[in-house]
């Protein structure tokens, strides 16, 4: 078990967004969280990566309580993320972005090795290495964001909607790469709008709705779940 989120509640200003959310990830597994717009998926990830303070509940990582650890310190423990909107540094080159991914002490010495691993995973990035990240296409930016996260040699990789704004043929490629990373030994937590496609790759999944975990289970348990359909349509 790598990540253990227990009963977190949080929000923005006075507005509560998450209500008692619990979830966990296992070693070498792909955990997917789906849910409609505004359900609180990104907010959940923000509490896990440390950008968002929790009101109640705790976050555990590899047996440590990290609830009040600042975001930058969590990276040193082996957590890395490609956040919502990718958040690359637009004025740095693609390679500059990747290299910064190896900022933490643990990763610096092997930065060159990690870089060539990322390039072999995403050959496109090697071609575009000296282009400013702000000028990459949506798909390339997503690869760079995942690559930057991998540069820190994480044990837990957190991805927020990697398929967003990407050409449909590329989506499959991204999901397949994610699956490959899992086989390589990573624990992955992935948020996706693209529920049906993402569930094909998941080992375990959570459905989030209006800030609450509605159901969780293996994809086959959830496949025919009425709630999955409802979760998507009840909001609109």
């Amino acid at each position, binding site marked *: 078990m790598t990540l253990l989120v227990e009963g977190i509640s949080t929000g923005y200003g006075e507005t509560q967004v998450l209500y008692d959310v619990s979830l966990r990830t296992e070693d070498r597994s792909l955990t997917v969280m789906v849910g409609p717009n505004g359900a609180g998926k990104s907010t959940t990830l923000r509490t896990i990566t440390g950008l968002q303070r929790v009101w109640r509940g705790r976050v555990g990582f590899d047996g440590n309580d990290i609830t009040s650890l600042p975001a930058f310190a969590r990276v040193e423990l082996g957590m890395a993320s490609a956040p919502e909107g990718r958040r690359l540094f637009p004025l740095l080159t693609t390679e500059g972005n990747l290299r910064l991914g190896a*900022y933490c002490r643990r990763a610096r010495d092997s930065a060159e090795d990690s870089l060539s691993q990322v390039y072999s995973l995403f050959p496109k990035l090697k071609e575009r290495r000296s282009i400013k990240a702000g000028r990459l296409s949506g798909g390339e930016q997503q690869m760079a964001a995942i690559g930057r996260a991998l540069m820190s040699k994480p044990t837990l990789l957190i991805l927020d909607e990697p398929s967003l704004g990407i050409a449909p043929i590329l989506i499959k490629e991204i999901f397949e790469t994610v699956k490959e990373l899992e086989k390589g030994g990573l624990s992955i937590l992935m948020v996706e709008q693209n529920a049906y496609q993402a569930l094909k790759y998941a080992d375990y999944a959570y459905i989030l709705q209006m800030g609450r975990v509605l159901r969780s289970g293996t994809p086959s348990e959830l496949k025919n779940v009425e709630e999955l359909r409802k979760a998507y349509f009840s909001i609109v």
Partner: protein
Amino acid sequence: MVALAVILSDLLFGMMLGCVFAVVAHGLNLIWGVVKVVNIAHGEFIMLGAYGAYFLNVFGGFNPLLSAVVDGALGIFVGYAFYFSFLHRELRGKERITLRSEMVTLVSTFGLSLFMSNLAVVAFTGDFVGINWSPGTVALGFLELPLGALYVTILAVLIISTSVVFLDRTYIGNAIKAYSQDITATQLVGANPTKVASLATALGFSITMAGGALLTVWIPTGINPYMGALYAPISFVIVVLGGPGKMLGSLLGGLTLGVVIDVLQAFVPVSLAYAVAFLLLIPVLLFRPEGIVK
């Protein structure tokens, strides 16, 4: 032939002066570009650097080059003190620097500016002082170059290029650039935002105060409590010319302003030369608001 010599020497002197301007502007640029603080008290820290060089000369016999090094070291401490007393409360935990915190720091550094220049009158008196340092001249064709100004130019270029290399080539330097673009993402790659922002501020002050020491060579009798009122605007114009946050922009902006001022001085009184040079800002802001550097 004579006219050509005059133009060439104006150009050369303008470029040398511009390099020193570029240093003080570079200090401002780092703080403005990275922590988005428009430091109104910038000129007063130039003044502090200049007085530092003056007293080091009077009591220690230091020349301005040595004083620039000492000022630079002191500037690190001054910068950290400034960060943690003026900026930390505003920036801590922020994912973006809001307009509100920019206003808060603007007003508080304005207060600091008034406090420092008035305190300087009490501490240093209002008299104009200068440093006596003349290491001789060197003949360059038909030009006589003062060696003092030449050394200062070399040190100025060295300071700017070292800081550019530091920002480009080191992890922490890269993190400073990253912070100026996206504070949240900087944390997500594992960099401590407080460490990064305070270091950038410390470097900015170090360079500003070292620049104040270098400037004394160009103003042999002009160190005074209100000198900031001239050199702060010069720095602001240079940063805008070069483009805020663009580190090589300081050098290019400084060279431009130095040459313009020096050439203008051949035709109009000195004070008017500065006034006209500041006018440069208007077309630049109108046509290239991102600065002359691409």
